[in-house]
């Protein structure tokens, strides 16, 4: 009996386990997942909670609904991986030996890494929306807020879901319009990037969109500290921005056990070959989803596309074949732009996001880098697809590798 251990039963861990369940001979393979949290979160939904578009119950389900025999789920944190002994030590004192290990423990926010952020004003005038708790708190705050200056800040890249701060800003703009207080709110986006987004064409088009919505971008802003009493953020080059409400995307880091096990880089991400997602250090360790240092978007869509191609490659690999460099860094994201509209981007390691149509060239129905109501509905329908198809390891009718058909060079 061969043993496969999957650390993390979030989006990537759950999808890959259910894929294996369909295609592997489970008389020969024992598959064990480890995760400390019994709840599965639909993380894209956190964005909608501050504005009352989703509630708590829309974004949580028991992990047990998605992981069933012959898969085993152990509820525990991971203490340490010993890659030489091929052993995982758990916080519950259990030890698991493995032939192959998949690390899928994602990335998390660390507000305590920025001085002044996670102190007495955390949850009062300083908020986030990257966890269920923080998004619920922000919902209460926005409900009572009279207006003032809203500053949205990204501490450092990479972050999970790089478009989320932009979506938050555009949904906030819409929210304040709807509640008749947009004229009492000033919105500033302070980002360490040189513009609204990472890639040139998308950055320009999204930058213009923000401008039309009267949202000010403070570019190249590397935050050094928050001054919670003076209510201002200060950058390393000593620019200061005062706020009434600060919504931050704190520093993102991989899991602590990755560092304790000597498997991580400076942000606890596991260095991998970006085309095979195999650990650079150990040839029986793979990293799926946000936990690796692959220069792809940290997003559920990326994990899903990577896993689509991973499963079959892994099965060939364990039979002694070479790994194919199969993963192209494909990502696509719905971007909520407010007022019931959204846009979409589709890109990979090599190709930046471009305008066009997706997934059917010339037809769509989704429009790339262009607002449409259909994109917004697509995003809302995606929640159904996530719970009912994606997590269960079923095929979703979207191509895994990026295609240039339907994209316009601009």
């Amino acid at each position, binding site marked *: 009996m061969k043993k496969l251990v999957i650390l993390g039963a979030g989006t990537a861990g759950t999808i890959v386990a259910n894929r294996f369940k369909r295609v592997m001979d489970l008389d020969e393979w024992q598959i064990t997942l480890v995760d400390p949290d019994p709840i599965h979160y639909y993380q894209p939904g956190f964005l909608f909670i501050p504005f009352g578009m989703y509630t708590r119950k829309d974004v949580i389900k028991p992990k047990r609904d998605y992981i069933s025999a012959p898969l085993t789920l152990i509820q525990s944190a991971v203490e340490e991986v010993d890659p030489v002994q091929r052993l995982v030590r758990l916080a519950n004192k259990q030890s698991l030996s493995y032939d192959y290990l998949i690390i899928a423990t994602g990335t998390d926010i660390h507000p305590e890494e920025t001085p002044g952020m996670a102190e007495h004003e955390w949850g009062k005038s300083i908020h986030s929306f990257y966890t269920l708790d923080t998004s619920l708190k922000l919902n209460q705050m926005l409900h009572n807020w009279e207006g003032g200056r809203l500053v949205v800040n990204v501490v450092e890249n990479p972050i999970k879901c790089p478009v989320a701060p932009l979506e938050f800003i555009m949904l906030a703009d819409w929210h304040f319009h709807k509640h008749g207080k947009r004229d009492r709110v000033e919105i500033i986006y302070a980002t360490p990037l040189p513009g609204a987004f*990472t890639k040139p064409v998308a950055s320009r088009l999204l930058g213009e969109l923000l401008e039309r919505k009267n949202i000010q971008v403070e570019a190249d802003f590397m935050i050094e500290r928050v001054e919670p009493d003076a209510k201002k953020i200060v950058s*390393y*080059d000593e620019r200061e921005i005062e706020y009434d409400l600060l919504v931050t995307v704190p520093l993102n880091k991989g899991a602590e056990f990755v560092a304790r096990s000597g498997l991580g880089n400076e942000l606890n991400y596991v260095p991998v070959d970006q085309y095979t997602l195999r650990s650079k250090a150990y040839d029986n360790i793979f990293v799926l989803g946000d936990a690796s240092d692959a220069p792809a978007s940290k997003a559920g869509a990326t994990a899903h596309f990577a896993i689509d191609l991973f499963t079959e490659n892994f099965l060939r690999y364990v039979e002694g074949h070479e790994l194919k460099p199969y993963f192209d860094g494909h990502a696509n994201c719905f971007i909520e732009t407010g007022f019931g509209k959204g846009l979409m981007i589709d*890109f990979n390691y090599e190709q930046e996001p471009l305008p066009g149509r997706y997934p059917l060239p010339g037809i769509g129905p989704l429009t790339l880098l262009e607002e449409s109501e259909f994109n917004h509905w697509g995003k809302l329908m995606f929640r159904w697809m996530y719970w009912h198809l994606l997590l269960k390891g079923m095929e979703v009718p979207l191509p895994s590798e990026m295609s240039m058909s339907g994209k316009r060079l601009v």
Partner: protein
Amino acid sequence: MVAKTIAGKTVEVNEEGFMINPNEWTEEIAVEIAKEEGIPELTAEHWKIINFCRQSAGASGKAPTLRQITVGTGVSTKELFALFPKGPAKKVARIAGLGKPEGCV
């Protein structure tokens, strides 16, 4: 991609002025690019960072991020901003003849 003469040597640079081939780089070129970036003189502290970045890129094939520089050299982010004002990672990469640090996606 264009050819540009820096410190008497013709090298290829991209549209943002980053050198294409790190092997064409010389210390004299670094001094000239630093001037373009508003740094009149490269001190020992500057060179410590530049040398680290060249070594790091030699091993990994890409210019290090700001956090990789602070972890690798022990120089604080604050000091880096003093040495290479506004965007130190980008600035030092250009001076060190490396590509632009990868924008995070």
